[in-house]
């Protein structure tokens, strides 16, 4: 087992950090960018494309970089460090990942190439009011019509749903949940966008006999959805780690400079001990997220590893997000100061694809099935013996 990044990975991190630092090093810039639609900076999106990041995990023959989950983790963490509002995980990891998992070669060639170039931004329309964090659809139904399909029903909230050039939509088909592509200008498509509390954008997306194309061969895609969601959960864990890291460093800096009662706040052990506990939470979560990406890289059980990463980063994100504000005091609650935005983003991530309690329940269902958890054993490391 090896937790060290190789030199190419370190170079990647440095390059991404440089780009994002130029874009959002000043937190006021982010605040301005998210205040108007589409909620991110199209120029920064183009720069991410120029660096090859928007095709990072896609196969080279489809216009991608052919990189692995560790590289995705690095980019996600750097996005989190400045809470960059660009929809890297939503478009590249999640929607792009679904296309990779279920799409035909032709669809991959067309869509991955366009995503990588930054000219097409996809979104995954999956969440429905009344259910949560399931890999199946129930409120949108697909009906075969001639050579194609039509969709009817409502998805909400769909992150990036209003701006998306193409939607990957989950819908009820015979025998399960299928995946479909819907163009942004399709007939019978109504999108109502709004701001989310963390500066992002989401939408209500209604389909009314909307023409759609099956992604891949059609049929039940629940397993592909489950896997893509798991990979996105792991990527969000890395984004959280970046955000928590900045929240903690910002808090520590504040404790060293802010004076009350004639001394800086770091003279109060009641505060420094709490900062120490934040560090403990962060490092434990970081280890778990890195491990989950290594499991993905090794071809182990991604879904189980993602649940573990989700649980650990959810707990850590709440702990660090809340304490970062509390240790700042009133300024932490203002929109003019940056730390509260980190807490808001951590809160959004926590609710996007499953929170800590949700992950804990899933792990609890399996608790009797193993004697001990061996991070280097089955089901995480392929080929390893059962502990």
């Amino acid at each position: 087992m090896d937790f060290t990044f190789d030199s190419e990975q370190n170079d990647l991190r440095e390059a991404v950090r440089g780009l994002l630092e130029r874009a959002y090093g000043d937190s006021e810039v982010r605040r301005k960018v998210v205040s108007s639609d589409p909620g991110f900076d199209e120029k920064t999106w183009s720069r991410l494309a120029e660096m090859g990041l928007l095709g990072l995990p896609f196969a080279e023959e489809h216009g991608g970089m052919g990189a692995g989950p560790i590289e995705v983790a690095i980019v996600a963490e750097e996005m989190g460090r400045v809470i960059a509002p660009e929809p890297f995980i939503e478009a590249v990891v999640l929607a792009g990942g679904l296309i990779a998992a279920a799409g035909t070669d032709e669809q991959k060639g067309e869509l991955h190439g366009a995503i990588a170039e930054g000219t097409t931004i996809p979104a995954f329309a999956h969440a429905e009011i009344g259910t949560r964090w399931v890999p199946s659809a129930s409120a949108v139904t697909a009906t075969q019509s001639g050579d194609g399909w039509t969709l009817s029903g409502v998805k909400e909230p769909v992150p990036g749903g209003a701006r998306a050039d193409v939607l990957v939509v989950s819908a009820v088909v015979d025998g399960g949940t299928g995946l479909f592509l819907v163009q942004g200008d399709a007939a019978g498509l109504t999108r109502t966008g709004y701001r989310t509390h963390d500066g992002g954008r989401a939408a209500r997306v209604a389909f009314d006999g909307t023409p759609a194309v099956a992604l891949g061969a059609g049929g039940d895609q629940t397993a592909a959805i489950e896997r893509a969601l798991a990979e996105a959960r792991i990527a969000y864990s890395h984004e959280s780690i970046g955000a928590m890291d900045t929240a903690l460093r910002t808090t520590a800096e504040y404790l060293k400079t802010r004076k009350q009662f004639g001394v800086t706040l770091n003279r109060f052990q009641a505060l420094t001990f709490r900062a120490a506990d934040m560090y403990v939470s962060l490092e434990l979560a970081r280890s778990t997220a890195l491990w989950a990406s290594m499991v993905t890289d090794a071809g182990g059980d991604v879904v189980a590893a993602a649940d573990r990463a989700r649980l650990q980063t959810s707990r850590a994100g709440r702990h660090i997000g809340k304490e970062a504000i509390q240790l700042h005091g009133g300024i932490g609650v203002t929109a003019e100061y940056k730390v509260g935005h980190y807490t808001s983003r951590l809160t959004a991530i926590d609710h996007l694809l499953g929170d800590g309690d949700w992950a804990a329940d899933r792990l609890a269902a399996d608790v009797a099935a193993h004697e001990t958890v061996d991070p280097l054993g089955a089901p995480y490391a392929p080929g390893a013996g059962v502990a």
Partner: protein
Amino acid sequence: MRLQLSPELEAFREEMRTFFTTQVPQEIRDKVAAHRHLTKDEYVSAQRALNAAGLAVPHWPVEWGGKDWTPLQRHIWREEMQLANVPEPLAFNASMIGPVLAAFGNQEQKERFLAKTANLDIWWCQGFSEPDAGSDLASLRTTAVRDGDDWVVNGQKTWTTLGQYADWIFCLCRTDPTAEKKQRGISLLVFPMDTPGVTLRPIELIDGGFEVNEVFFEDVRVPAENLIGEENRGWDYAKFLLGNERVGIARVGATKRLIAQAKEYAQEISEGGRPLLETPRMATRIAELENELLALELTALRVVANSADGKPHPASSVLKLRGSELQQAAMELLVDIAGPLSLASFAEEGSDVPDFARVSAPTYLNYRKVSIYGGSNEVQRTIIAGTILGL
């Protein structure tokens, strides 16, 4: 970044697993699994079994019986040992005075002590804490005054773990009361526990057991050659020693074992017509604990890989802090599963209460110590806030 162990390390892990589960007496391992106190003879025979195979002190220099392993190999060694319920080599010997002697002792001292220390022919105990010097160890007041060829030691030590079995003590003494900084005037002396003037008083703990002691020194004469390293440099050696103490203190393997036991017992006790393990609250509690432990294990693996230069990674404080909390949480889980059966703590023959339930409450109470010894968790928070966060 790579998940799997290399084939060499896989083989190494298998070799360790096989050794620990076949070459250390089963009855000793059963006793560890049942959380029963070991006798002195059992500690000694377990350590000698390891030492005979060269597995008692792998972290020592090679010329004194060490293995020149990577930090990851040492981690695997410790993990597998704990998973197999093998009592670890006596910490006072293997992790504390041994490495100090190897690093700072003179050649004569090394030859005199190290082999016997590895084999537990000498049982060492630790003379560090005093009634008024706990976390603030540098305030210690036991004195050693030079008189001819001897040091004369007076004072008192406390929390001397298993001192009742000890042949020798390594003892921090104030040798220069005039030193400007209190850390500067301390020296490290070693002497036999049966030296005239040494008396030991056992302290009963809340579990009814006797594992710690007070040790009193009244004009104890210690030959000058028993000074380890340089005079007045004892604090440096103590810091070196405590850094070693913190490595491996996460005790992930041991806690894993506890949780595995908890799951087994939670299958055997029913509540509301189903096994306790199947109740949502218990299942979730165990799942959360397993995940916390996984995070700790991964962090330990991450930290060992980054402490190759021999110095403990600053994040090793995380291991102590969280490791102790999880040991306590796992023990709390066991006592909660035992429920009313935990009251039968001192039942003997004629009681139907299973063994684990009898020892659960005393062990739970005893385990309050783990967040206190080895640098209390508050000391670890101070280290994290100071050295890592710069606060």
